[in-house]
């Protein structure tokens, strides 16, 4: 006997996403951007982003340097790709941190309800009122200067310079942004848990005597994956933007490390004479953010048809 295969939420969502042309193009574009940022620099096709060649600064695009060179004679293409690695990495790790905190906080608040919920959400209200960028700047400086103080110890302990560089220069940014950016996720998850926990299947789980931990994390949360995924996709571009803003202001990623924010800052300095230095990173940066935002919007329409306003 042949059983009819039902449509899951995910296969329906995939179908709806495929119909949304902008979102689908964005998805492929993002896969492409990630691939060239993370794979291409590892191949011999691309020159090192740190090879300084002062005799060859501000070179025009050529077969040797596809996008030309910057003020220190470094290959612009490899700098864009390397900077992309840092920007994307910071966006992803910070988002991961904020999701872990936001989902657990919101889930516990919504599930417990009552006084605990009131207090927890009151705390979020106050935190929400604090200016995000001001705190991010303060925290990131505190964490990164503290990490720098211990740089020699870390180097002795870990041995690898690249790893220490990651911990001292990149990780503090991810931590700061992630630890300060979870409030909206907590609110989203809380309101979803509040309405989900009243459903009958949760009542059934309670009457079966399952533990609270099991009910919350195994029964309720998997049903909230949709909103969580949607909000995650919309958070990543926001955090990439935050990193770039910090680097632009000179309080984020520090040279010789590069990121899109740093390249935009440097490009702005030379825009009068060498506009390409500003224009290339601008295009890549804007296209990446645009694609992430379109994908997020498309996913929302696909996973949560009720919320979409079409």
């Amino acid at each position, binding site marked *: 006997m042949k059983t009819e295969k039902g449509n899951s939420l995910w296969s329906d969502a995939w179908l709806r996403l495929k119909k949304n042309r902008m979102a689908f193009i964005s998805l492929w574009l993002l896969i492409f951007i990630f691939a060239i940022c993370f794979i291409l620099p590892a191949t011999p096709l691309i020159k090192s982003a740190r090879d300084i060649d002062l005799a060859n600064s501000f070179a025009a695009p050529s077969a040797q340097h596809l996008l030309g060179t910057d003020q220190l004679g470094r290959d612009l293409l490899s700098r864009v790709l390397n900077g992309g690695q840092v920007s994307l990495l910071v966006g992803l790790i910070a988002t991961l941190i904020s999701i872990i905190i936001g989902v657990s906080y919101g889930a516990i608040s919504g599930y417990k309800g009552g006084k605990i919920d009131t207090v927890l959400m009151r705390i979020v209200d106050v935190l929400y*009122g604090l200016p995000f960028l*001001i705190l991010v700047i303060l925290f990131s400086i505190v964490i990164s200067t503290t990490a720098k103080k211990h740089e020699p110890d870390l180097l002795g302990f870990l041995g690898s310079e690249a790893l220490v560089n990651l911990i001292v220069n990149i990780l503090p940014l991810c931590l700061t942004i992630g630890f300060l950016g979870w409030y909206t996720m907590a609110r989203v998850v809380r309101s979803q848990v509040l309405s989900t926990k009243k459903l009958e299947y949760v009542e059934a789980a309670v009457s079966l005597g399952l533990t609270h931990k099991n009910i919350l994390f195994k029964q309720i949360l998997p049903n909230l994956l949709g909103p969580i995924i949607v909000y995650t996709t919309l958070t990543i*571009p926001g955090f990439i933007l935050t990193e770039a803003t910090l680097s632009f*202001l*000179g309080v984020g990623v520090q040279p010789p490390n590069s990121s899109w924010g740093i390249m935009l800052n440097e490009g702005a300095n030379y*825009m009068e004479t060498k506009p390409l230095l500003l224009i290339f990173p601008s295009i890549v940066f804007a296209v990446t*953010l*645009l694609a992430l935002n379109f994908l997020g919007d498309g996913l929302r329409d696909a996973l949560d048809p009720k919320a979409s*306003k079409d």
Partner: protein
Amino acid sequence: MLKTILDRLIQGVVVIACLLTLTFFLIRLIPGDPLTDEKAMSAQVRKQNMKIFHLDKSQPVQYVYYWKNLFAGEMGMSSKKEQPVSKIIRQSFPVSVILGVCGMLIAIIIGIPAGIIAALRHNSAIDNGAMFLAMLGISIPAFVLGPLFAKFIATQIPFLKVAGWGDPFDWILPSITLGLGTAAYLARITRAGMLDVLSQDFIRTAKAKGVSQNGIIIKHALKGGLVPAIAYVGPAFAMLITGSFVVETIFQVPGMGQHFVNATKDRDYFLLQGMVLLFGILIVMVNLAADILLTYLNPRLRSE
């Protein structure tokens, strides 16, 4: 209604107190102090600050003196600029307010009508075009737009300058750069709010009764449809104010953002605390104003 406002006011005070406390201890967690810097605090500045803030005492004691002096209106001396913090604020605060208000006005003037028109012409070319532009506005940050504006617009129009803050013409480019991103968010939120209201039963009833299209929009749809957009004005202003750090850097605007960023880098404790206090007050006030407007527009909130 009074209870809601009072509640929000108390919350605002708590927010400012938290912000100041966090700033006070965070800046002191950064290794070193204004004295260990290469541009050390001069003896005179140190003497002044010492007299009122007791820098030789422990941090908790300094913290108590900080609050005591704050209530007396004393904010100390900037160690880098060698000027009283209150004087620096008097010079830079009006600039930041002008920039913030102009940016917000541009965001509202562009964003809200665009959102309303997009909702009324739902799924048309105008709607799709406006929403694509809004997506561009969200994805292209001020530090990409600003330099491009400076290069391609300021050099073309005679009365616009690439940088500076002399006459009101200089307000134009920084305000536009600052406001466009927020305009994009506002357009999306306004459109969603309007679509939500327009699909409700009472609008259909009004249509069936023969109320004209304009009458429906002005009398019935706008009041409810704009609620989400107005609710967003508070957070949007906070975003604008901190976004001004970037715009001030690009166009060399002498506002508070510059002082904030530099004070953090220089560990200029008193200047930083002063700036954060003013930013906090600004943001809390705008949030409060938006809340009052919301309770006025939304009867459901009033009866609570």
